[in-house]
């Protein structure tokens, strides 16, 4: 009798498992794989292949391809340099305001596109407050130089977090040994520390390369005549009404970004360089030379000052009538965003990002659990597909969505899926935007979940299973409470990324679904920088409030603690 019950329970347990797997597969198929396949199918169709020949033959394409690579390399170099500098100072140099510097370095993570670009135009442009008003320089910020600065500042925080973790994990005993053998600090740094960090540096270089190539907002706002692939795709769709050219150009952007992303993934996941033993082997020896200390501090502090200046400009600009012309104080910009017709976009975006947030975090965690803990056919394929949302440039995915969901999906006369995209689509086109938000932010949850699960010994779960709990119960009662912090950070990331993503939804907005970032673009383009800045300030505030709320709701008492205290 009891063994019979147990079989039933086991079956139910596996059913939740396979149910979860089906859910994840359906989500990835709809959110990533099908749109990508539609995009590839169009570009490999006879018309697409003909377009390939035309596009690749044009001199302008070669120029654009070179521009894209040069910009990617420049951003990757400068961004990695900044990330390394900030991380190095955090770990090895004793400087004042360390915590403050850390938070300033993280600031760009939650900022919407355009915020930094518009502030940089206002400060350092041809009529910039600093370049022109202060120094009388007519500096042309549009183009490669401006883009490199803005993209490096926007994307280096992610690389900084990675390098910081890596440096903190280094075993100081290695340095100590070298120093004890008579090597100078500088010599040790060159011959011991840097070689160990090379994979990490290379990883962040490639990550920034991919991010820079995939970005759309900044090249639109600050590119000027410097056209890159992402902005060229946008022009092909928006300016030339040419879906086929858009798809063909997308393939040309997709292939290098995907290759770089995979290379980056491979390097970072090899892990052979990490000297984590689990046991601390002493604290790192701080740099003592006053010259080195203060020159490093000066470098970091001036970059931090630049970041503060830029965000200060965003904040001040939001209260300014017409930055650059009329500096009088006004609340009109906020009136427009909060109560004028700008408010519709604000409300819609928060709702849609809010819906996407738990979907991304839960499915992401589920995928992480399945991939790290379970064996099943197609596990690697699932792992790979779950990363695509991060690796595929938003513009490319956006085109895929338009192609895949502008008509209902029918098989043999039966409608499997109604039309999703556009104003006549399901829920006024909102469903497809939520899908896009969730697909783009889920990979972070997978990564967080995987990293956390790898640190938790599976014996805990095995014990639960041996005691008769099924897979569902074990996941709910044992695994989930333990990985709650990972779920929380996944949710925060999902919300912040959804609120600030432009490239993937710019082709999907409808009369009923106005998205804040797209509205910022409209306002900036019309020269109403005040409204654009106010949108940016409100957007940053919303994300910060959401983070605080999530911490209160989920973060304060982790499930693990509660379960442990209840258990005894």
């Amino acid at each position: 009798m009891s063994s019979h019950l147990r079989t039933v329970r086991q079956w139910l347990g596996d059913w939740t498992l396979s149910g979860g797997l089906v859910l994840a597969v359906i989500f990835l198929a709809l959110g990533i794989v099908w749109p990508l396949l539609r995009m590839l199918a169009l570009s490999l169709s006879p018309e697409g292949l003909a377009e390939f020949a035309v596009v690749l033959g044009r001199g302008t394409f070669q120029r654009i391809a070179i521009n894209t690579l040069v910009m990617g390399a420049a951003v990757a170099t400068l961004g990695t340099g900044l990330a390394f500098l900030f991380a190095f100072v955090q770990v090895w140099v004793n400087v004042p305001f360390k915590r403050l510097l850390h938070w300033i370095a993280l600031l760009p993570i939650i900022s919407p596109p355009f915020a930094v670009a518009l502030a940089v135009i206002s400060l350092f442009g041809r009529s910039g407050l600093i370049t022109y008003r202060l120094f009388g320089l007519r500096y042309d910020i549009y183009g490669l130089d401006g883009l490199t600065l803005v993209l490096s500042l926007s994307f280096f925080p992610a690389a900084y977090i990675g390098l910081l973790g890596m440096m903190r994990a280094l075993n100081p005993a290695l340095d100590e040994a070298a120093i004890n053998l008579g090597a100078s600090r500088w010599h040790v740094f060159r011959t011991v520390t840097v070689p160990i960090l090379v994979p990490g540096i290379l990883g962040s270089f490639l990550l920034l390369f991919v991010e820079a190539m995939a970005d759309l907002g900044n090249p639109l706002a600050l590119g000027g005549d410097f056209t890159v692939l992402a902005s060229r795709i946008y022009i092909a769709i928006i300016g030339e009404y040419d879906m086929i050219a858009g798809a063909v150009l997308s393939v040309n952007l997709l292939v290098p970004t995907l290759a770089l992303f995979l290379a980056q993934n491979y390097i970072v996941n090899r892990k052979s360089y990490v000297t984590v033993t689990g046991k601390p082997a002493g604290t790192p020896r701080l740099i003592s030379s006053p010259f080195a200390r203060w020159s490093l501090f000066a470098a970091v502090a001036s970059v931090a000052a630049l970041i503060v200046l830029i965000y200060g400009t965003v904040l001040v600009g939001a209260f300014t009538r017409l930055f650059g012309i009329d500096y009088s104080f006004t609340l009109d910009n906020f009136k427009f965003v909060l109560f004028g017709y700008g408010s519709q976009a604000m409300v819609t975006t928060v709702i849609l990002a809010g819906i996407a947030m738990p979907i991304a975090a839960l499915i992401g965690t589920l995928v992480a659990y399945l991939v790290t803990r379970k064996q099943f056919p197609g596990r690697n394929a699932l792992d790979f597909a779950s990363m695509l949302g991060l690796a595929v440039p938003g513009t490319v995915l956006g085109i895929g969505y338009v192609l895949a969901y502008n008509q209902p999906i029918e098989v043999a006369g039966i409608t499997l899926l109604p039309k999703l995209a556009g104003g006549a689509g399901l829920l006024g086109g909102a469903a497809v935007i939520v899908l896009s938000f969730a697909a783009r932010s889920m990979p972070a949850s997978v990564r967080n979940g995987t990293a956390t699960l790898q640190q938790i010994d599976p014996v805990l779960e095995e014990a639960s299973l041996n005691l008769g709990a099924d897979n569902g119960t074990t996941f709910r009662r044992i695994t989930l409470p333990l990985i709650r912090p990972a779920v929380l950070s996944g949710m925060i990331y999902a919300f912040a990324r959804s609120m600030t993503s432009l490239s993937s939804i710019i082709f999907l907005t409808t009369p009923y679904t106005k998205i804040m970032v797209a509205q910022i673009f409209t306002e900036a383009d019309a020269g109403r920088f005040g409204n654009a800045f106010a949108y940016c300030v409100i957007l940053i505030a919303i994300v910060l409030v959401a983070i605080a709320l999530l911490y209160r709701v989920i973060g304060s008492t982790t499930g693990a603690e509660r379960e442990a205290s209840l258990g005894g």
Partner: protein
Amino acid sequence: MSARITQRITIAITTSALILAACAPATPAAPAGEATAPVAAPTTLTVLCTPQEDWCQAMVQAFEAKTGIKTAYVRMSSGESLARLRASASAPEFSVWFGGPADGYIAANAEGLLEPYVSPNAANVPETYKDAAGSWTGTYVGALGFCSNTDVLGSLGVEMPDSWSDLLDPALKGQVVMAHPATSGTAFTAFWTQVTLDGGDIDEAFTYFADLHKNILQYTKSGSAPGQMVGRGEAAVAVIFSHDCVKFIDEGMTSLALSFPSEGTGYEIGGVGIIKNAPEPEAARMWVDWTLTAEAQEIGATVKSYQLPTLPDAKVSERSVVLSEVNIVDYDFVSAGENRQAVTERFDAEIAPAPKE
């Protein structure tokens, strides 16, 4: 183990497919319901709107107040609009398209995306501002002009430009901004104006823009962006529509001043047209009729959009530039539309990438 899981997955997939299949019959019922809708008075309308956001908003509100029809709109550039209409041709999401240059409508009509409708009110619109067959009707017009920053011009010691050749002054090196003809109807209008002035010789026009290129700071992506760049003092002269320049001045860019080329300038006609297979055909016709009333055409000026009404009896804002006061070229919209693709591609290949020395 894994075989068992595979089996479970198969079961689960089959189940979900069955669930989806079971849901399917519900969908065909919806269009049937829609089909009966036009019998009753129209209740909703979805507008594809190309002018500036606040104008779209004001139009939609006024129309709702007048007719009680719940009206939604989405604002899109003219190019984007055409792409969306094309993408959803089999099941259009919009019923009527309002605003944006006539060449967009001509292109859409050539692809069969528009439903001809000759509104009774179109009789009052001059011949040059409409398609006789009713695929589109002009609701506003506006002339191209030079929008200059007087402060910047003063510091350069250059007079306000009042001819196309004034823009070639070497003192204006890196001081002229216009949009890229491939992405902006405004810039394409500027290009075709040159072609018209050169008696239809496209090569001559290219020679002019190759010369002008030396003075160009940047080819922006959107048509009106040069105005705000010049307004903020980043350059001296923008080639944009005159009504956009007046709007920037009204929004506080007080150093801007407007002038026109003496040789002649081009203009745009903003159209309105019904989309083929429109889901709300009755409401769409009501919208077209309404936009061809003086009352509707006077709304633009209330939100600082100073394009001219096409109806002779509509009141003209004192801020508007009256076409009769400007030297207007004989602009051939059909020929412009036919040559657009070839011209923009050539511009992108020959002019834009050339060094500016």
